[in-house]
């Protein structure tokens, strides 16, 4: 079992106010207590007590941070490349462009695969969202939205709907798809999520009924699609949240988010609590993606590195960087086995890294502007890359 959170009590009466609701597990004077999020907020905003100043709080914060690093360091007995010494090297890969999807009139900002492994949805700066059959290059549905900068799009697990995040409206909407190519789908658009700033990422959970969104206002939120109700909100980032990813593991109760405050945070979906945080990057984190088993995740940042974090060991275990790579990485994804890490960069190329040996295996050239998103298909047969040069490419 990779997920430690499943045994924690996350619903019940709050130890402070007694109300039944989602609970956060925190420690007060080294004693574990379960507080509801409102009581946690009250505790945080309580006026400065006698002897407490901003400076004392800052010092306490620094000592605690050092202690956390110490605790993490105690269990650091081996490095990734040492463990991977006996593993054979990845052979030469011959990955070529198999399809070029042309049809967008402006920068393609986001794309997502359908569970049927061949369809995908893509959104672009001119407000157009297109559902393609990648295999036949057929454009199945097209929606024109009145706003520009549709920065996030996601395909529903059933294949019957898509979710879109508006960059200017600050909303995330769900549009049911239809078999009729000429039907005007924009009329069926249903607003689900409302943020106070741009929506940077959205994804469905295991069903069509809930979506998880991340926003420029620094928060993430879980919404019920049918009623538009906010089920849980996640606060903790101190700057825009640029990306999120749901855990694929069997106890899929967590998700990871990365933002402009250079932090990546792991959250418990049930209570809204921030369980783990990693502060290793030197610049904005553009994309986070879970390892296929759910035990680790990778992040891509403007500091031109991708890093791998192990959740059970609670630390960063690998940095994927090279002196010749100095432009920010905008997106990452793992291959099906987790051996390869595909990373799209702002210098118009995609680098393929060997996750275990921490070396670069291959570079894929072809795009003429920066890569906005790379995504491996659900059965691992192909990689799709969306770029600001108005096209998408499928590599295999």
């Amino acid at each position, binding site marked *: 079992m990779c997920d430690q959170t499943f045994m924690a009590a996350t619903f019940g009466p709050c130890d402070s106010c007694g109300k039944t609701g989602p609970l956060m597990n925190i420690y007060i004077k080294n004693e574990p207590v379960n507080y509801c999020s409102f009581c946690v907020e009250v505790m945080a905003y309580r006026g400065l007590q006698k002897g407490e100043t901003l400076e004392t709080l800052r010092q306490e914060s620094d000592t605690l941070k050092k202690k956390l690093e110490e605790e993490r360091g105690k269990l650091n007995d081996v490095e990734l490349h040492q463990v991977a010494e006996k593993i054979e090297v990845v052979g030469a890969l011959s990955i070529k462009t198999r399809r070029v999807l042309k049809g967008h009139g402006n920068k393609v900002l986001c794309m997502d695969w359908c569970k049927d492994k061949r369809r995908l949805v893509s959104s672009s700066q001119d407000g157009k969202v297109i559902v393609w059959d990648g295999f036949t290059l057929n454009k199945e549905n097209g929606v024109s939205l009145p706003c520009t900068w549709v920065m996030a799009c996601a395909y529903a697990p059933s294949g019957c709907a898509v979710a879109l995040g508006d960059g200017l409206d600050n909303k995330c909407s769900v549009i049911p798809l239809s078999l009729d190519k000429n039907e005007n789908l924009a009329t069926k658009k249903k607003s689900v999520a409302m943020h106070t700033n741009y929506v940077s990422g959205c994804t469905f959970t295991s069903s069509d009924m809930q979506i998880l969104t991340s926003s420029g206002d620094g928060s993430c939120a879980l919404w019920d699609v049918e009623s538009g109700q906010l089920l849980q909100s996640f606060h903790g980032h101190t700057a825009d949240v640029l990306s999120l990813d749901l855990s694929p593991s069997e106890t899929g109760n967590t998700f990871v988010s990365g933002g*402009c405050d250079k932090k990546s945070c792991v959250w418990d979906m049930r209570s809204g609590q921030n369980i783990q945080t990693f502060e290793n990057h030197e610049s904005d984190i553009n994309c986070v993606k879970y390892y296929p088993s759910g035990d680790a995740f990778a992040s891509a940042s403007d500091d031109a590195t991708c890093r791998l974090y192990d959740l059970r060991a609670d630390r960063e275990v690998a940095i994927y960087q090279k002196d010749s790579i100095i432009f920010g990485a905008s997106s990452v994804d793992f291959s099906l*086995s987790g051996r390869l890490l595909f990373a799209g960069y702002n210098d118009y190329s995609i680098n393929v890294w060997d996750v275990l040996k921490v070396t670069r295996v291959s570079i894929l050239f072809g795009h003429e502007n920066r890569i906005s998103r790379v995504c491996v298909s659900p059965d691992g047969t192909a990689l799709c890359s969306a770029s600001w040069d108005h096209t998408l490419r499928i590599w295999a």
Partner: protein
Amino acid sequence: MKIRTARPDRGQHSRPRMHCLNKLEAIVVEMQDPKSGVRGVEQKLNITIIPHVISGKDIIAWIANKMKTPPEEALAFGTMLVSYGYIYPLHNHKKLVMCNDTSLYRFQTPYFWPTQKWVAEDVDYAIYLAKRNIRKKGVLEPYEQAHYNHLHEWLNYKWDFIVMQATEQYKAGKERKKPDRVVFDCQERAYWIVNRPPRRTHSAMDCGPDRLIDPNADEKITFDQYRRMNMFYQQAIMRSKVKSSVSLGVLVKYITTYKNHDPFLAPCLPSNPWQTDTDTYWTLNMRRVDIPTKMRVERWSFGLFELLTDLRGRDDFKIFLKKEFSGENLAFWEAAEELKWGTASSISTKAESIFKTFLAPGAPRWINIDGRTMGLTVKGLEHPHRYVLEAAQTHVFMLMKKSPVYKDIQKKALNPAPHNFSAAQLEQNAQNQNPGIHPIILWKQEEEEKVKAAAASAPVDIKAVMSKIDRRNRDIQ
């Protein structure tokens, strides 16, 4: 008068951090070193002579040598130098790419280098366009003319100032010597192509929507943020961690297990649909095939979760459990999943029906879980919420994990032979691509089947059946 709303000012005040600028500048400075940098020559342009011109070939060779990269990577890096505006092309100035041939480039003056500290303001652009307009009317390109008209309207209140500045700069320019003037004009033009790119030009300064955080400002942390951070650190310190050797070992094990199933590492049988344009691989792995493939069955054996996520695996497991008369565990697990991921309005009805079917004493499909979990769950069901069945579901999952996984299905699995298409056949495949079944149709089919299955397994109403039989007997008599 423009009234600024509370919305973030999209006028490019806070930009994405351009972390790469320091490293880029260091490299560009090295490239200009008279001894070890790129060789420059003089070039004749019309009648003037432009100093220090470099060719694309030389630049790429220098980059490849310095960074020890293959020429393609050096070319990509060179293109980035051009698109950021550190180097500009002399001919074809609208295409910001580096070409590996004798095309000519020049280094941009540091005054015009991209910087994070301040942005290329609209006012400066307006002054530049006005200046060009003064020099010769009608010299502006269509996209520049469109910008000019737009700025004239937008910045109308400042227009006198703009025209005054433009005239001053024009006069100052006239006093320079001709070669200097030509060079400065080229540099300025290059700067504005990078910062206000025309339609088909890809410039690296075209950054996308701005992030709200100001990269130049220092972070100010308030006392409540410190309190929250301290609470977080405390729980993070107390959180149990695992030794690196153990957790990394698990990662490596996962990769080794799935190695042969990764289409990028091992060929998928019969063939990768994207490579050969035949979708046999997908049709063989659909939910309702007669015989599943060997690789698919092998994947089910990796873990119960793999088996349950593949709907075909779940169906086969259900049939197997039915034979063993222990299907209630899987049914409960499925019902709990539906509760967790379903709509908010259906939670209470679903929770009630689950209680009646699986948890109530004497229920028709009572699941056998330990007393403590049962107690917790029943208590939680008084105020049902999304995660009320979490503990019970995990327990049932563990129980199912321990049940022996059937081995006879392995014998019946299909092992498709790898495709070996000739070039002509590949071309034909590309012409006859199979459109496949639309997921909406599949979804509707599955929903219909679910309804039928629910109706078939509903508890039989004995009274209704008996009265039906009575009625029929009466009719016969």
